[in-house]
């Protein structure tokens, strides 16, 4: 078997185990919660007498022993059946799929922009280390790294929506505007600008720092001197010789941060009133909607695992020397 296939299959097996472990973990976590979902539901239905609670408990299988509930849950998870939301009266999988596109478009766009911007700024800073542009980039990066993203979001709304009126502040599209075709697309893009910038800024600061540090380590190595001695143009030295070597640690960290990005989208979706997974997670927590919470946990973990697989792949493409480690 070619090495890359071995590599991918090993990672896939590992990924499946990680997801299963997380599923078990989530199940016990949510069941550790104080309070009984049947009692909560009954309370909301306005009739909390013991008989009704008992009936609800039977209806949703909450009276079975814990291991049996776990078994049922795991069996369903394997079939991509994430259960039924008591509260929203809809299958959890459908709920999640409704919300996923918004979250994915938000996090992926932010991620790509942050990575491109971060690597570019970090390279610029490192190649001009010690000059005013390096200092400026470093200071801005440090500040962005220290700023809570929900607050940046609010301040951007204040500046660009309230004071300047350039960009919309809330939602994913103008409600009732009746745009079609190209206009509708532009409208959606405009709604994405502020959330994407807010979420991306923090990570751009992280990648800038990393790229800068990494390039400073690489740029004085012998092979760079050789390239320079050969008379290669500067852009080629930077883009081919330095960056290709310096970018590896950035990719590693970027892969690890997929999970953080999804976490960040909870805050961003709250600030900008976007109907995504993050917002759903927050609502589910408040309503103690266990099934939805379990589903969100599993889904976000799967997204992160897929993301890590992709970074491994990119890593092996950028660095052909990579060991196919067990």
């Amino acid at each position: 078997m070619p090495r890359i296939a071995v590599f991918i299959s090993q990672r896939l097996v590992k990924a499946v185990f990680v997801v299963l472990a997380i599923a078990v973990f989530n199940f016990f976590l949510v069941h550790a919660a104080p309070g009984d979902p049947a009692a909560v539901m009954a309370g909301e239905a306005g009739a909390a007498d013991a008989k009704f609670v008992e009936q609800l408990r039977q209806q949703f299988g909450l009276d079975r022993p814990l291991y049996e509930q776990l078994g049922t849950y795991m069996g369903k998870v394997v079939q991509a059946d994430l259960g039924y939301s008591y509260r929203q009266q809809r299958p959890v999988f459908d709920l999640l799929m409704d919300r996923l596109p918004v979250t994915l478009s938000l996090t992926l766009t932010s991620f790509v922009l942050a990575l491109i911007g971060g690597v570019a700024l970090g390279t610029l800073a490192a190649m001009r280390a010690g000059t005013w542009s390096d200092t400026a980039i470093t200071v801005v990066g440090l500040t962005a790294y220290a700023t809570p993203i929900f607050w940046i979001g609010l301040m951007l709304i204040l500046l660009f929506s309230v004071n300047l009126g350039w960009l919309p502040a809330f939602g994913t599209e103008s409600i009732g505007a009746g745009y079609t075709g190209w206009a509708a697309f532009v409208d959606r893009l405009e709604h994405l600008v502020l959330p994407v910038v807010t979420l991306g800024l923090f990570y751009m600061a992280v990648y800038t720092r990393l790229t800068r540090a990494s390039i400073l380590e690489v740029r004085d190595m012998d092979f760079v001197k050789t390239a320079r001695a050969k008379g290669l143009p500067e852009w080629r030295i930077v883009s081919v010789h330095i960056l290709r070597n310096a970018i590896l640690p950035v990719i590693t960290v970027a892969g690890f941060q997929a999970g953080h990005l999804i976490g960040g989208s909870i805050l961003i979706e709250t600030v900008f009133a976007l109907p995504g997974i993050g917002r759903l997670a927050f609502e589910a927590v408040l309503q103690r909607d266990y099934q939805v919470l379990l589903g969100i946990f599993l889904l976000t973990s799967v997204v992160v695992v897929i993301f890590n697989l992709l970074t491994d792949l990119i890593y092996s493409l950028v660095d052909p020397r990579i060991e196919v480690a067990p």
Partner: protein
Amino acid sequence: MTAAVITPSRRKGSGFWRAFARNKGAVLGLVFLLLVVLMAIFADVLFPTSPWDMTAAPFEPPFSEDALLGSDTLGRDIAAGIAHGARVSLLIGLTSTAVAVLIGVCLGAVSGFYGGWVDDAVMRFTELFQTIPNFVLAVVLVAIFTPSLTSIVLAIAIVSWPPLARLARGEFMSLRSREFVQAAVTTGQSNLTIIWRQILPNSLSPIIVSASLMVATAILLESSLSFLGLGDPNLMSWGYMVGAARTVIRQAWWMSFFPGIAILLTVLALNLVGEGLNDALNPKLARKGRA
């Protein structure tokens, strides 16, 4: 000649301070941090009334007579909230970091010292926790165990320990084969003594640097949680103030602006101090970016 020039510092402390003071940003950060600590300690003296009490008319803009930084939607003094909120931020930042260091260093030490299947098991466990989206986990933990000081501290610690475990593991693995450890083994010291008395003191400086940076992250996490309404309902905190003012951003910018500035400056100061510590404690290491 050279012997006259090189005057070895007699005490270890003076060398540390000189290295730390060489980083201007770090000194600035430390001074600001001391101010924040003083503000937290004397919050009751500066603002004797509870930050939850109405002290002014609602929606007073900044620099008005009875509220320096303005008042919020219920007439509570923003400045008083910031002063009292400093306590919560610092308290949660420090204690949750302490708990995270405890978990991380214990697991990392065991993993790096024993190696083999113990190392494998601990590292799989760590990877699992690194894969779970950490803020989502923190939100769920706090929500499930109802928001309180304890649940918030534990949640932040539980999502923060993995990098420390990895760091401690690396240190222990590299120090484990060094001569002074072998000497300790030959003299018949127990494993616990070796871990605690021999290896740990030698691996402290990178742990201290990461921990100082982790306090900053913990404060950001706490503010994010309380922004979502998952703060301790009895304690005024910066994140809560921003969250409560979110809906009136169009009418009253100051309600969310000032608490946010407080978070920003405190976290920035902590990061600067962390870098200064790094320069002073790991002078040989090139400054590396943080994960």
